[in-house]
């Protein structure tokens, strides 16, 4: 972030905590940026003449006579088409040795879209992954996270989804990315030859956690530029939002706020909503779709972070290791895309809805059969067929390494129905059975 002329400089700090410093200063505005001994900081509290600054990189080694300079403006990003293909840090400064971006200066964390001016999301975003396209179809303007345990390959899945999605720009907001994952993304984008449509804002694990708080707003300010000004379809990837929330709790803790559930700040819901609600279908065709990652602690979705996220986002995608097939699958039971009804059967084949529901219901029957088996009860012929079906359904459709078109997914499902079940067992509408049933027994 470049600073402005006419800076006001102070050199007498009154208080220093782990994350904040306070000093007496005049004419300071709320949210304004400053530097404290060269480190970037933001005004978080004004009380009389005393101004409290949150120092993003921490206050280690800051002396009481540190030089404080105020910028007179909140955090901002220069936006223009030059952003495309570039990598930035949390402050919006290039980290790829390229030149600084010239363009219009926009304050990050800007206002919300008037809900009345929004359009209903209606464009399907195909990914080739059946666990998504078939069961949990994505729609442009949607916001949806992956709920995954830390050991699952969520970043790889997300990179895959991004590269296959038919969008104009992909914006990566990496928070607490390991250096390896950062390089993975970079390599994946490069080798796909898609670098020119990708913009990355990255904070890695070796950088101060509080800096992460700027990442989503930076990424979304860039997204709004392309979606609003250029009417483009923008996909924003945010990983990992759990680390973002952790940074929020660090800050609120150091500002002596009373924590609510799971030592998260009481404002967690609003803080997360402000980010996710930037997902939008705009009236002039542009859109922002957000795919995020929320890492879970041993699958616990009642923790404040996934819980609040679930109330904000339009569904969630669960990654699960399927022990029967050894594949990572998108769990059809716990995953949900709330907006899928807007596109399935409308932009996809007429049988989509019924095939999707039937396939999942039969998979549920298989899991009941499995429970029966584990409890030592006898299995019926139907149970056994369900179990065989489940293995093939999992491998050929739920696994994340699948990459086929939606029609192929539907055909595969019909093939499995025909292989393992009778027509009445599927309970599908007569008319559709007549048209699509595959008898390959």
């Amino acid at each position, binding site marked *: 972030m470049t600073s402005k002329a006419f800076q006001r400089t102070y050199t007498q700090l009154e208080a220093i905590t782990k994350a904040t410093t306070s000093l007496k200063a005049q004419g300071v505005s709320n949210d304004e940026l400053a530097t404290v001994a060269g480190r970037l900081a933001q005004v978080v509290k004004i009380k009389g003449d005393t101004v409290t600054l949150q120092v993003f990189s921490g206050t280690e080694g800051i002396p009481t006579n540190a030089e404080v300079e105020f910028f007179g403006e909140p955090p901002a990003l220069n936006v223009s088409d030059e952003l495309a293909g570039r990598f930035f840090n949390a402050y919006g400064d290039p980290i790829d040795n390229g030149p600084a971006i010239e363009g219009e200066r926009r304050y990050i964390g800007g206002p919300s879209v008037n809900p009345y001016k*929004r359009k*209903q999301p209606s464009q399907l975003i195909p990914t080739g992954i059946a666990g998504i396209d078939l069961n949990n179809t994505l729609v442009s303007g949607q916001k949806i996270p992956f709920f995954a345990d830390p050991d699952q390959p969520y970043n790889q899945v997300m990179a895959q989804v991004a590269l296959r999605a038919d969008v104009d720009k992909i914006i990566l907001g990496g928070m607490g990315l390991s250096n390896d994952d950062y390089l993975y993304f970079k390599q994946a984008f490069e080798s796909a030859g898609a670098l020119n449509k990708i913009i990355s804002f990255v904070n890695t694990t070796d950088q101060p956690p509080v800096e992460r708080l700027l990442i989503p707003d930076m990424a979304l300010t860039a997204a709004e530029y392309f979606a*609003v000004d250029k009417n483009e379809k923008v996909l924003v990837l945010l990983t990992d939002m759990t680390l973002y929330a952790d940074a929020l709790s660090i800050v609120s803790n150091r500002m002596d706020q009373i*924590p609510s559930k799971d030592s998260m700040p009481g404002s967690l819901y609003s803080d997360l909503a402000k980010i996710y609600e930037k997902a939008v279908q705009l009236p002039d065709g542009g859109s922002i779709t957000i795919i995020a990652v929320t890492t879970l602690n041993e699958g616990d979705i009642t923790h404040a972070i996934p819980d609040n996220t679930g109330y904000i986002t339009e569904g969630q995608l669960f990654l699960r290791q399927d022990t029967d097939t050894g594949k990572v699958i998108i769990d059809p039971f716990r995953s949900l895309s709330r907006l899928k009804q807007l596109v399935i059967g409308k932009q996809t084949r007429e049988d989509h809805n019924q095939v999707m529901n039937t396939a999942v219901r039969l998979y549920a029957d298989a899991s009941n059969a499995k429970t029966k088996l584990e409890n030592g009860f006898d299995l019926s012929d139907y149970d056994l067929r369900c179990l065989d079906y489940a293995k093939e359904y999992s491998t050929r459709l739920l696994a994340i390494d699948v990459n086929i078109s939606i029609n192929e997914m539907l055909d595969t499902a019909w093939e499995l129905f025909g292989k393992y079940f009778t027509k009445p067992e599927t309970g599908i509408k007569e008319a559709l059975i007549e048209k699509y049933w595959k008898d390959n027994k």
Partner: protein
Amino acid sequence: MKSTGVVTGIIANLVTVEVTGHVSQNEICYIDLDGTKLMAEVIKVTGKNAFVQVYESTRGLKKGHTVEFEGHMLEVMLGPGLLSSSYDGLQNNLETMEGVFLKRGEYTSPLDHDKKWEFTPVAAVGDKVTAAEWLGEVKEGWLPHKIMVPFSFKGEYTVKSITAKGEYKIDETMAVLVDTAGEEHIVTMVQKWPVKVAIGGFVEKPRPYKIMETGVRCIDTFNPIAEGGTGFIPGPFGCGKTVLQHAIAKQGDAEVIVMAACGERANEVVEIFTEFPELVDPHTGRKLMERTTIICNTSNMPVAAREASVYTAMTICEYYRAMGLKALLLADSTSRWAQALREMSNRLEELPGADAFPVDLSAIISNFYARAGIVKLKNGQTGSVTVIGTVSPAGGNLKEPVTESTKKAARCFYGLAQIRADKKRYPAVDPIDSYSKYLEYDEIIDYLRERVDKDWVEKVNRAKNIVRKGKEVSEQINILGDDGVPISYHEQFWKSELIDFIILQQDAFDKIDSLTSIDRQEYMLTLVLRVCDAQFQFESFEDCNKLYKELINIMKQMNYSEFKSEQFNKYLEQLNKILSNDK
């Protein structure tokens, strides 16, 4: 003269103002941020310092910015044109705002001041009138919108003049009233009212004595809500709270519906904006939007205005109630409102209660729900406000402050169960945990006898018992295995499944199934109970499963068919054929 002040402190949207003059608690003020006026409300006063919560972002605000106090609390503007409008939490008209983004400091008038309305006087010169009495009416769409003596008028007035029938704008004089001191007061079509104060002006508020039909079977049949009653829907995310609320909004037997989208997803509101102008109100045949007002303060809009939004919605409902209309308030979600209270209490450094919510949360929620009710107006007519709120309990755990506080205040509880949602049994209202206290009211029991069937409550209780028993035996079956229990256990289990599939589950996306009239509900429940009474002989539990699956399938088809249509009767015949083979 207005009091003024200057900003002395800022933490997020809590601003400290040093005041010159007097201020009152909850008074509205505007902070001048270099020409942009930010609306705020006084929430605490100590000495010369007023603590105000700002309804907008405080970015760029500085110490020394000036503040002007308005001398009144947060008010809404009441008059013809409220219906079909879309407002934010502070009643700014979202439709007339310019640009795609919300600009802070931009406030739009809730009502159209240039539109003309056809006015017909009701009162006559010389009439003695008091607050809330009707002076005239205008047609708002198809509704007779009463022009009333403003609620704030105290004592008795005499009508000095009343405007003749004709077309007028809302700000024109409709009547001149003279108070007992001889002073004249002008009445237009609009009045203002502070949102946090309940609108009175009625004679009495009796216990609710009739039910409000929603067309949703698990509510109307199992746990009906009373007209003027209160209910709430708690449930974890993904269990269908919003779908259920939208279903009630589409079908509820009310003349005015106010939907408060409070801290929820913007795309859900967009769905209403997109669908309601197209969908038809099943009661009047008109477009749904004509009877609907939307108060929309989505999760990314300023938090303080979120708190105001539920009150704004309630006040509009009370306004229509005073016209003798049936109003229904749907608040989604009251948890977000409670969270807004929590954020502010936190910034005020108040001592927190459970889960860091303010200690008076329970009282605030009770006060809010207490504003519902059916009332007898001064002219003997009745009007009502029915409230259904949703609650989003953290982690789906109902032992949390908002759910517990609401449970004390609301009389109907529609708990959404994760396990039902996982099995795609929608609406996921738990048939065993949910309740309606109104089923215990003698007035309601009498009403249902009259309206539905003389044995109705007994039937409902029987059905509930079958479901309860079914749950017990299903646990037994799970432990002992299909073969380990007598066939009668399977029968009991399947009878409860029958009630579950035919009465409780309902396809909100199916045109016919989504809306079930009370007569049809009576018919179907009676039929289902008749099936439950049938005696069958089974060789094995598989036979039992098979037969009941068939019965369920036939009756489900009935649910999908037009009531008593040819198709419906065809399935009924099939059913009767099976039943005649019983014993």
